[in-house]
């Protein structure tokens, strides 16, 4: 009987748009907690639920708007109003790929792993291309209040402007802390940063 139910379930869920919610429980059975990577990580917030439900198709406009508004409200500007930290530390954060994995020491600071997806400093040739090149980021855009705020928002919660972005919501999800985000901002904007050479 259980098998028949499974089969029916499988057929019903042949379309990915319908597969999201019932799969949750069965996923849980196939995973086990390991170190910091506990089973709660399988729980989805509303953004993740919606992004899963509509993958791989295009998001309906009203769903896209819903995700944007859910995430827009999470963005907190720096407490002291200063956007820019230290670009040398920013480069180290951009290079570091560890953090939040079951194999990582939670006591050590997490990286942003920016080079996995973006070109930044010209000297680093081992960069990925899932995201756009950020080479000369500040040099090309300047550092007006609007540009600084928009970039901070992108780092803090990418889904506020791009629903279901591939980029993690670094600030909102607490992956990087405020100082680390400021250091990455400096990497992008400081005229002396290797990104702008």
């Amino acid at each position, binding site marked *: 009987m259980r098998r028949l139910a499974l089969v029916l379930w499988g057929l019903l869920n042949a379309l990915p748009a319908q597969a999201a919610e019932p799969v949750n429980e069965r996923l849980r059975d196939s995973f086990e907690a390991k170190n910091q990577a506990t089973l709660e990580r399988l729980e989805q917030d509303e953004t993740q639920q919606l992004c899963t439900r509509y993958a791989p198709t295009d998001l309906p406009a009203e769903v896209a708007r819903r995700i944007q508004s859910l995430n827009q409200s999470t963005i907190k500007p720096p407490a002291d109003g200063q956007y820019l930290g230290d670009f040398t530390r920013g480069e180290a954060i951009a*290079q570091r*790929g560890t953090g939040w*994995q079951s194999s990582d020491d939670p006591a050590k600071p997490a990286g942003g792993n920016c080079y996995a997806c973006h070109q930044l400093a010209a000297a680093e040739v081992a960069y990925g291309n899932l995201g756009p090149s950020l080479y000369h980021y500040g040099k090309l855009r300047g550092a007006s209040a609007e540009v600084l705020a928009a970039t901070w928002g992108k780092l803090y919660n990418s889904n506020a402007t791009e629903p279901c972005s591939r980029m993690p919501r670094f600030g909102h999800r607490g992956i990087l802390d405020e100082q680390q985000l400021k250091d990455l901002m400096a990497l992008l904007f400081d005229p002396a940063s290797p990104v702008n050479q």
Partner: protein
Amino acid sequence: MPLSRRNFMVTAVQASVSMLTLLAPRWVLAADRRPAFDATAIDAALQALGLPPPQDTAEILFKAPEIAENGAAVPVEVESRLPNTRAMLLLVEKNPHVLSARFEFPAGTEPFFATRVKMAETSRIHAIALTDSGNFYTTRLVKVTLGGCGG
């Protein structure tokens, strides 16, 4: 070029060591060569083997990738065109222990080897040929790249 300047600077001590080696038998015993594998700098490794600083040559064919996708195994292929090459050394400048290997070619064996070496980081690799008319080296720079989604 930087090799001869940075690593093969002939100090008074080394010069006297190489003078001694002229009087010593051609090959020290294998067991006596083991300390060279613990050397943390190139000049120290050569000194431990009783070898004078080698000269630059274009007669060693040295194939190594410009960029290594992973430092855990970097393929190298070395062939000496110098007459009477008796042995060759493989050294990785930035490894914790610089001497990786020593290969010996009895008469009838070609002065050639291919193997895979670990590299801790981007570094120059040196191949040194020990011949009847002196020691010669050639160098390749291999960039070891970072990879993966988790660092």
